[in-house]
């Protein structure tokens, strides 16, 4: 009898311990940390395929504007992504195209090809000039892509409301000390999982740029920011990126994302 009580007692203790462990592990995985929020934003549903027309307006300190219009198509392949884009304007770069294969694995370099219509030639370009500004805008190539979560250390600073919208404020510090930003601070809208404001700090820790996302609404059930404004505080220059048209999951064929498509210089 005593033995039976001992076995039952041990079994109860074991079950209680297991329950505590499961609860602890679950709490660990769902605890609201900077990294968990960054992962939520990174994994936010954004469709498996996208086709959009973007307009970028560059405004200098004297108020002079320049405009670029881009047709962009992209498709997810698991964690990886293929995209192709063609400039529709201005006239001097019309037909210029980029093809890009982006890999989630940070140790695998992205593959990129550039088509220049004047030379009628595709050339392989490198995948690591992410810190360069895209076509004279205030967005770097890295700003326009999806940065891997593990490239930064993330810290939840606080919760805050902007325009009555609940936000998490997350600070991200790059692990690579040579990166062009020393840190970024993001105000992430909790319902849409989209940063509605991002501050970029330069290598000296001085505020360099502020990105604000506007006109955030659901398109085909997917939260989409239709207007982004990147304000370079130091250079008094800004770029407004507007999405004029976007469609998700429209059955883009795999053969669109090939060098042969890029070489044609056009897609309909």
């Amino acid at each position, binding site marked *: 009898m005593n033995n039976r009580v001992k076995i039952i007692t041990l079994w109860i203790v074991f079950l209680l311990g297991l329950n505590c462990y499961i609860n602890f592990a679950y709490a660990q995985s769902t605890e609201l940390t900077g990294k968990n929020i960054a992962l939520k934003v990174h994994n936010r549903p954004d469709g498996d395929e996208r086709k959009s027309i973007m307009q970028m307006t*560059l405004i*200098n300190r004297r108020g002079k504007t*320049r*405009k670029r219009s881009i047709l962009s198509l992209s498709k997810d392949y698991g964690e990886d992504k293929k995209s192709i884009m063609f400039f529709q304007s*201005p*006239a*001097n*770069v*019309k037909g210029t195209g980029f093809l890009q*294969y982006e890999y989630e694995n940070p140790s*695998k*370099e992205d*593959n*990129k*090809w550039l088509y220049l219509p*004047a*030379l*009628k*030639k595709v*050339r*392989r*370009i*490198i*995948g*690591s*000039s992410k*810190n*360069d*500004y895209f*076509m*004279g805008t205030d967005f770097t190539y890295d700003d326009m892509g999806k940065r891997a979560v593990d490239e930064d250390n993330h810290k939840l600073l606080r919760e805050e409301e902007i325009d009555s919208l609940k936000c998490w404020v997350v600070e991200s510090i790059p692990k690579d000390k040579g990166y062009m930003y020393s840190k970024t601070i993001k105000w992430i809208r909790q319902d849409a999982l989209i940063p509605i404001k991002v501050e970029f700090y330069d290598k000296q820790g001085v505020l360099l740029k502020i990105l604000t996302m506007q006109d955030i609404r659901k398109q085909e059930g997917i939260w989409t920011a239709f207007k982004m404004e990147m304000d370079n505080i130091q250079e008094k*220059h800004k770029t407004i990126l507007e999405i004029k048209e976007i469609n998700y999951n429209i059955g883009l*064929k*795999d*053969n669109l994302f*090939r*060098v*042969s498509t890029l070489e*044609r210089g*056009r897609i*309909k």
Partner: protein
Amino acid sequence: MQNTKLAISNLVLLLPVVLLGIDFEPQGFVDTYHAVRLKDPYDFLSSRTRLRFEMWMIGENASLFASMNAINNNVITSNSGIELREAYMDYVSEKWDLRVGRQIIIWGKADGLAITDIISPKDYTEFLARDFDDIRLPVDAMRWRFLFDKANFEFLWLHVFRPIVLPQPGTPWAFKYELPENTKILFDNPIEPELTVENGEIGGKLSFYLSSFDFAISSFYTWDDYPSLHRTVSNIGDTTLVHYHPEHHRFTLIGTEFSVPLKNFVLRGEVAFYKNKYFEPENLLSEILFKNDVLNGMIGLDWTPGSDWMITTQFSDNLIFDYNQAIKDDEHTMLATLHISKKLFRQTLTLSTIGYFEINGKDCFIRSSMDYAITDELHLLSGFDLFFGDKGMLGQYGDNDEIWAKAKYSF
């Protein structure tokens, strides 16, 4: 009447656009380019204005592209006029595409060096004092490509031969000949292949676009764009007459090319084997030409350090097999190129220098330029071209150092 006909023909052309929902995209540019010699008599070496009109009509699986030039050239007046530059149709299906018509076809990874890039002939009317895209000439061809996920196979058929365009005598860029005393030369028009099916040029290229590198192998059964300078030598009194009978000959190219991205660099290379190329004798008075095989190779490195800098360097070597000392060309002809460019002020100003260095002849050509975008549409460009050395392909233009200005409006 003429206007009515034009309007009706325009309407007929535009009907499919309206009825079938085809996108119609006119575009083009106007540019004006003027260059002045940097020494006495300070004459214009180039002075030309051009309207380029381009048009796309894009349907679901088919498209059409046409481009025309209207040129006024004040220095080489024979270049003035209206020309159809390109006009081709594309059909695209899931597994293959077809392009037929007058088109520019580019092979290879080299910039400004023709190793496997011999499909579209070159126009050296103004030698290298033109943009790369103006130097290539379109060809009448059919390009049929079979498309795979990471590879293409393309088949080419050129049914009309188009030769290289060399600088004409009497123009600032004419080749200079050093003739022995009491020697005269006379050129016949080059003998070109007749327009027959048998005289067509055919080629094939298998290209791979892989995660770590691009790679291709190619072959082209072609006519040499350069005419071989066959000659007869005769004596008339005290004068020796060298009478050239230029003729184009067949040869075969087998080539390979690659491009490998490596961190901030892209390593590029190309090798071509030419079977049965003709070579001139060193002795002007010799009537015997040589027929040899050639290996032509190039290795290049593109460096993109960031901040809108771009540095490109290339080295090429042209090796003649079974070399005979009586051949005019050297056994090895080595050439190096260097291109440095930097974009400033939000990419509105581009500074660029490109240099060609002939290692054999110790001569070189340097072109420096500045391109400022007043607006996205209107660019002002200016620069200078300098030639160093006494002889050789580049050094022969030692008197043609020039300063130039250009304006270009794109629409």
